[in-house]
């Protein structure tokens, strides 16, 4: 069964390719999947309906007890057959419904096939969480299908309404399902039903929440309004989702839980009451529609109410009738929707005031419609008749079975009234689509493949066959109903019960329905008058008011909390930091054990840094602030040395140098002074917040140091670092092995930052569009030290000579540092930074042409290559039988040179090296060369006012 569901999604994923190859004929291939599922299910369903269900169990995430459970039982099997059978036919039908070369069907076909898979998974699920996952999948996919044509605003709104209403219900259901899981200690539905939890408030609340989900999905009052809007979907979708599949999920869930939970307080009043109210409301609304598709949509609302009322009644005969009705409705409603699709496509309208003369033009389609509509109305000898007879019989005995004769009678009267309306709107549908109307030009339908009209014909034939095959179906359907206690009579599907009350009720329904149809004008006037005069509550308006309220609330909250000021936001965060953890700090405060410093170097350096930091805040000149910042940065690296962290010190010095030059590259364009700000209260607030934060962080440092009692985790790293990591430099082994995932994350940040820098300067979102191609330039002067063409006054011959002399040596050294970093200070970061500084020297000495000469590659290529090398070297150990990012140590004997000690993490370090070089190159190209080019552009523009300046 997992296989069947997965197959749907796999094939759905290939549908774009299928559509490209076969165009709309791809639907025929896609239809094979539900068709094959239907055939495969026949065997298990036959066994399940004889009392032998099939279970399937796949362990998914055992750590949290999440498994995939599927089951074919007497209920789910029959519904699964309906879902796959109708699904296959609808997909076949799509082949002719859509026009050739429709540009949208590659997506549509995939979504519809995926939806069929989700629906099958929902029905077969035997685990509350699997059920929920498929439940929400059908919600999301139906959103995509309803919004198939998003150009109309009303369609987008309809899709969104369906999504919000059913997701709201779905979330409520999830809480209920979790409650059921906790109450019965198992997530398996079959186990919950076999050994139900003891009744109590928790179970009642869980069941109530689950029912909210079921009612919203099945479009019952007060959630009914999303379903008519869902006709924004193409008609085959309406036939499938909103007649046979999605809306049946709620009915199915009620049917699944009814045998055990029907006696839960509130179950019957809610389901039967709301069901009958929905049945009558939908029927009344259907009688008012001109669009035949909308008529059917309201008819579906009505029928869903009927189904929920019968299925939720919770007696053996009602459950029997409910399952039969569910199947009958799936067959006739999908047939009728498909008929509407044929008419719509061949005539170009669905307005029953414009449709005329189709009976003569399309006699075959007329017969199909009459059969399906007769089944809907409950006329003999069709499936709809036998099922409805069973429902009437069940409700006649409902009062007796439940011991509440009054309520049973009320429910019976309600369903009979609903059935009268059903007969009336069925007649209205047949009359509206096929009758010859006075004063209306007969329509001349376009010709289509006979298969197009043939698909609804097959479904109508099934309604007829199932009506005749009542005795054959009775024991199969009864297997599900046998879970309920025995009732007053044994339910069965048959064309002739004798002169029973059910038969008389059927006669009443048909006669009154036909009368209602015949007198439709006065009835409509009466309805109109009532609807106009009585201020009836309208669920849709209430929903819209709620949505508006949520939006207003969002605007108010955003307006009050989002002031849009960066200093205010940061200030709030920092003040919170000072107040909340700070107050904890005050409470935890103990006079700490202190020492002045570990060595004199720390004292000297620390004092210089403190002075520099304070002066940085006070400086009004940009360059001065940056230079003082550099002092604190170099001071930090000295502190690292004094602490015993040579790797950190090396990296800090290199980063500080690179950052200093980068700052200067940008600052050359910015004004030399910070904008003049009056010395006011805001400044004192800033200084106050800064001081408080500094004190708080210092306090944390005191307490944290003194609070430490455990042995550091890294105490035991030394031996494994060498034996497994293959390196003596523990910090480097930590970076490329122990904490390599962290480093991968960091590399990604660097790549993103570098890409962001380039995009901000070159204003291109796509690197492949970058117009400046990197080229080598050849100097005209063969005696030049560098190929640079800087202005003479900016050149420094000494700098050029030194650059020329040291560049290659520095690059070689950077590579050495990278490789040796595993055993001594260095590594990919330090090596990459040194190579970056070498490139920076070339740029500073010779300008942007010189930079291109030094590195004639796009920075993006280097960045991407680096990330790829790091990722691949992380995967490499898996080929050697290790885990991802594990180091493998390979010793290769090389003649003459001796033994080569190769640790695979060196490749990871190469990736790190490349990413850092790429970042450096991107910074230099963007903030160096890029700004150079823009300055030259502006200079040229200043000379020639007609030129456009690039900004």
């Amino acid at each position, binding site marked *: 069964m997992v296989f069947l569901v997965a197959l749907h999604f796999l094939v759905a994923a290939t549908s774009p390719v299928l559509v490209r190859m076969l165009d709309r004929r791809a639907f025929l291939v896609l239809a094979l999947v539900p068709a094959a599922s239907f055939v495969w299910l026949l065997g298990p369903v036959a066994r399940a309906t004889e009392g032998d269900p099939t279970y399937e169990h796949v362990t998914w995430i055992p750590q949290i007890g999440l498994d995939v459970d599927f089951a074919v039982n007497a209920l789910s099997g029959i519904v699964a057959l309906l879902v796959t059978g109708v699904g296959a036919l609808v997909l076949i039908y799509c082949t002719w419904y859509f026009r050739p070369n429709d540009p949208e069907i590659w997506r549509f076909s995939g979504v519809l096939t995926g939806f069929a898979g989700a629906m099958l998974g929902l029905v077969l699920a035997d685990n509350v969480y699997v059920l929920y996952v498929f439940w929400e999948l059908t919600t999301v996919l139906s959103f995509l299908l309803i919004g198939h*044509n998003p150009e*109309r605003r*009303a369609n987008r709104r309809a899709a969104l309404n369906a999504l919000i209403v059913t997701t709201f219900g779905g979330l409520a259901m999830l809480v209920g399902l979790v409650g059921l899981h906790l109450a019965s200690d198992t997530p398996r539905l079959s186990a919950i039903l076999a050994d139900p939890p003891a009744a109590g408030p928790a179970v009642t609340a869980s069941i109530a929440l689950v029912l909210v989900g079921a009612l919203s999905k099945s479009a019952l009052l007060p959630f009914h309004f999303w379903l008519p809007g869902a*006709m*924004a979907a*193409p008609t085959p979708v309406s036939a499938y989702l909103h007649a046979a599949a999605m809306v049946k999920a709620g009915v199915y869930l009620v049917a699944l839980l009814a045998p055990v939970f029907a006696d839960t307080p509130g179950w019957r009043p809610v389901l039967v009451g709301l069901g009958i109210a929905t049945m009558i409301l939908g029927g009344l609304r259907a009688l008012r529609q*001109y669009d035949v598709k909308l008529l059917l949509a309201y008819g579906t609302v009505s029928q869903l109410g009927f189904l929920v009322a019968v299925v939720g009644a919770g007696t053996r005969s009602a459950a029997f009738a409910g399952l039969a009705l569910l199947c009958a409705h799936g067959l006739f409603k999908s047939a009728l929707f498909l008929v509407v699709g044929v008419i719509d496509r061949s*005539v170009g*309208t669905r*307005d029953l005031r414009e449709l005329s003369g189709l009976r003569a033009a399309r006699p075959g389609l007329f017969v199909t419609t009459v059969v399906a509509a007769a089944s809907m109305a409950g006329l003999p000898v069709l499936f709809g008749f036998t099922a409805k007879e069973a429902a009437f019989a069940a409700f006649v005995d409902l009062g007796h079975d439940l011991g509440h004769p009054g309520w049973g009678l009320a429910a019976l009267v309600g369903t009979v009234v609903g059935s009268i309306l059903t007969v009336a709107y069925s007649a209205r549908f047949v009359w509206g689509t096929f009758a010859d109307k006075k004063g209306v030009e007969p329509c001349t339908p376009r010709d289509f493949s006979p298969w197009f009209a043939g698909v609804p014909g097959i479904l109508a034939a099934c309604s007829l066959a199932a009506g005749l095959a009542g005795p054959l179906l009775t024991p199969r359907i009864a297997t599900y109903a046998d879970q309920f206690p025995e009732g007053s009579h044994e339910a069965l599907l048959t064309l002739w019960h004798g002169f029973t009350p059910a038969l008389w009720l059927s006669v009443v329904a048909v006669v009154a329905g036909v009368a209602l149809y015949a007198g439709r004008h006065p009835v409509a*006037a009466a309805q*109109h008058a009532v*609807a106009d005069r009585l201020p009836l509550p309208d669920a849709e308006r209430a929903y819209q008011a709620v949505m508006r309220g949520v939006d*207003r609330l*969002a*605007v108010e909250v955003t*307006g009050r909390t*989002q002031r849009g*000021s960066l200093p205010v936001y940061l200030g709030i965060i*920092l003040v919170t930091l000072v107040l909340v953890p700070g107050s904890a700090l005050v409470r935890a405060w103990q006079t700490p*054990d*202190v*020492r002045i*410093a*570990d060595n004199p170097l720390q004292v000297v350096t620390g004092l210089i840094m*403190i002075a520099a*930091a304070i002066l940085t805040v006070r400086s009004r000149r*940009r360059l001065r*602030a940056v230079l003082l910042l550099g002092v*604190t940065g170099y001071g*930090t690296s000295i*502190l*690292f040395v004094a*602490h015993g962290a040579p*790797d950190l010190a090396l990296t*800090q010095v290199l980063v500080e140098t*690179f950052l200093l030059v*980068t700052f200067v590259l940008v600052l050359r364009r910015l004004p030399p002074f910070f904008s003049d700000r009056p010395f006011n209260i805001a400044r004192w607030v*800033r*200084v106050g917040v800064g001081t408080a*934060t*500094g004190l708080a*962080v*210092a306090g944390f440092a*005191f307490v*944290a140091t*003194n609070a*430490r009692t455990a042995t550091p985790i890294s105490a035991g790293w030394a031996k494994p670092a060498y034996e497994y990591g293959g390196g003596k*430099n*523990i*910090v480097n082994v930590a970076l490329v092995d122990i*904490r390599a995932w*962290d480093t991968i994350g960091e590399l990604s940040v660097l790549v993103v930052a*570098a890409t*962001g*820098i380039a995009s*901000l300067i070159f204003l291109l979102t796509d690197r492949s569009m970058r117009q400046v191609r990197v080229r080598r330039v050849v100097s005209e002067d063969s005696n030049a030290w560098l190929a640079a063409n800087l202005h003479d006054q900016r050149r420094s011959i000494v700098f050029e000579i030194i650059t020329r002399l040291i560049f290659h040596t520095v690059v070689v050294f950077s590579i050495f540092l990278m490789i040796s970093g595993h055993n001594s*200070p260095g590594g990919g*970061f330090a090596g990459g930074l040194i190579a970056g500084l070498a490139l920076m020297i070339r740029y500073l000495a010779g300008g942007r042409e010189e930079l291109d000469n030094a590195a004639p590659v796009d920075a993006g290529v280097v960045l991407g290559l680096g990330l790829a090398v790091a990722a691949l070297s992380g995967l490499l150990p898996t080929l050697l039988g290790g885990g991802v990012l594990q180091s493998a140590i390979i010793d290769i004997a090389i003649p003459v040179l001796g033994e080569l000690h190769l640790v695979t993490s060196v490749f990871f370090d190469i990736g790190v090296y490349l990413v850092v070089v790429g970042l450096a190159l991107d*910074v230099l190209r963007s903030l160096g060369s890029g700004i150079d080019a823009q300055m030259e552009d502006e200079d040229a523009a200043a000379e020639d006012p007609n030129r456009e300046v690039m900004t």
Partner: protein
Amino acid sequence: MTANLMLIAVVGVMVGAGVTLVLERSLTRILVGFVLIGNGLNVLFLVVSGPAGAAPILGLSGDPMADPLPQAMALTAIVITLGTTAFGLALAYRAWQLTGTDDVQDDLEDDLIRRRAERDEVSATFDEVDDTELPDEGYAGDATLAPEDEVPA
């Protein structure tokens, strides 16, 4: 474990100075403050990691080593600071290019929302319902009908 007073003073002053700068409006000052805070916190890693020691490299010395784990973390942080600061500088340059200053202005969109809140309006993207348009697939026919009640002529 005793606390190293000097290093803690350095951390406190650098974070305090950095925060003061970060609360400014000039992007350059914010970035300088950002780097100051970054350096200060890297020193904080040293403070809480324990006493100074030998470099954590095997076979270099017999003395007790400094804790390597905070060093690896701080090393990552140093390089990330480089990347993000360079990105911030590009932002500052771009801001200067567009507005002639690198000051961070208040967000205009937030102001618009605040005005909407004052006028008790819904958001700009709210879909007000009007019944002039009905959902329709717009595919096969062009049935744009009003579901008006059927009234006898």
